[in-house]
């Protein structure tokens, strides 16, 4: 039963990725928005001045947050525009699999966007990675887990409204604050090499955030994604 369910959820992920990558607009927009944000922020410092590692990490996660809103709006609006929402609700799989598949697709797209943000931070904000690649990647995955757990739960919430991007931003951004603080502090360590002694505690915050919101999403998603 387990593998069968896994195949079903991967089918949704596969379908979403094919649709989004077919014309590219679903990923090009978040990448472009993030790159513009990084570039504009680079203008905030006078020529010759250095951007602090913490500021660079803040811009990286801010760009990621904007990408998150666009990615999850796209992922759920695909179902609305094609009227496939009813099909998903009628399918024999648990509704939580819709949440899981959207979260996995969102994670892949977010990592793709971050693949472009990272060199932009290095180039435009004059940063360099002071630690190993694997630790950095692990941290990005840890923070991204929390981001996509919330994004996939609340992304469905704003569907069916003209101003869905702004509504989702207003709802989601304040919720992400603890995770963003953790991401910024850990990012500052990776860019600047400074350790404030709380690195493992920040990782704990990010882990707790991911766990709490994954648990909440598993219970609450059927209330969000339903026919009313």
């Amino acid at each position, binding site marked *: 039963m387990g593998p069968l369910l896994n195949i079903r959820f991967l089918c949704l992920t596969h379908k979403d990725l094919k649709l989004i990558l077919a014309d590219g607009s679903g990923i090009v927009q978040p990448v472009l928005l993030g790159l513009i944000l990084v570039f504009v922020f680079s203008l905030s410092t006078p020529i010759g001045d250095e951007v602090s590692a913490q500021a660079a990490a803040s811009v990286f996660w801010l760009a990621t947050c904007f990408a998150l809103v666009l990615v999850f709006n796209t992922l759920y609006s695909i179902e609305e525009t094609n009227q496939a929402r009813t099909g998903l609700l009628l399918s024999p799989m648990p509704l939580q699999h819709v949440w899981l598949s959207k979260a996995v697709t969102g994670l892949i797209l977010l990592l793709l966007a971050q693949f472009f943000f990272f060199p932009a931070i290095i180039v435009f904000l004059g940063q360099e990675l002071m630690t190993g690649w694997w630790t950095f990647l692990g941290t990005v995955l840890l923070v991204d887990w929390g981001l996509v757990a*919330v994004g996939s*739960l*609340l992304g469905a*919430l*704003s569907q069916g*409204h003209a*101003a869905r991007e702004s*509504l989702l931003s*207003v*709802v989601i*951004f*304040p*919720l992400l*604050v*603890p*995770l963003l*603080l*953790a991401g910024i*502090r850990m990012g500052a360590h990776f860019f600047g090499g400074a350790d404030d002694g*709380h690195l493992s*505690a*920040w990782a704990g*915050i990010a882990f*707790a*955030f991911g766990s*709490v*919101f994954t648990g*909440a999403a598993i219970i*609450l998603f059927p*209330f*969000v994604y*339903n026919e*009313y």
Partner: protein
Amino acid sequence: MRDSQLINTGIPALAVLGGLALAAAQYFIWIYAPVEATMGVLQKIFYFHLPLAWWGLISFFMVFCASLLFLITRRSVMDRLAQAAAETGLLFSGLALATGSLWAKAAWNTWWTWDPRLSTTLIMWFIYAGYLVLRQSIDNPQKMRALSAVLGIVAFLNVPLVFLSARMWRSIHPAVFGSGGGGLEPEMMTAVMVSIAAWGLLTAAILLFRVRQLHIKDRIKTLYVF
């Protein structure tokens, strides 16, 4: 029906008690409690700031409880209570932030500082402002109630994480109820407790009044449709 009767009798009783308690609290604040040596009369802000902050946070907790109960029981009174608590919490926490800012300027020479309690209150203020925006944005009442309940639950789950992360960032806020009593004079502590109790009664009256108002609003809407 039983809910309506309970609300209708509760409102006048709580409002009168709250009014009397608030009047008594003024005596404790301005006459009974001594004037603080360093800050002078400006320290009296504290007797308004603390109850507002506490009852604001308790109102947010009520949003969580009412949302949870709404999803379990589907009783519309729970949804109304969640909305009323969110509005009251938003008002009280906004006032707590404003009075806290006045205090901060006098005590620390800054309008705002990154502090766990301040930051947590501000972040909660943003979250519940978003909650109310969401309620207004959805036309389908059934859908609006269910989605608001989900957000009401998720929002409060975030509180411990917000507080912990903000505390790890940095803190200079005084601990009023610390292990050693937080350094408050006994008279000041009495005035604080009386103020908290008075504001509690007033909060209960406001909440019930708003719940009744929302109930009447829903009835008028239904009358209009049919």
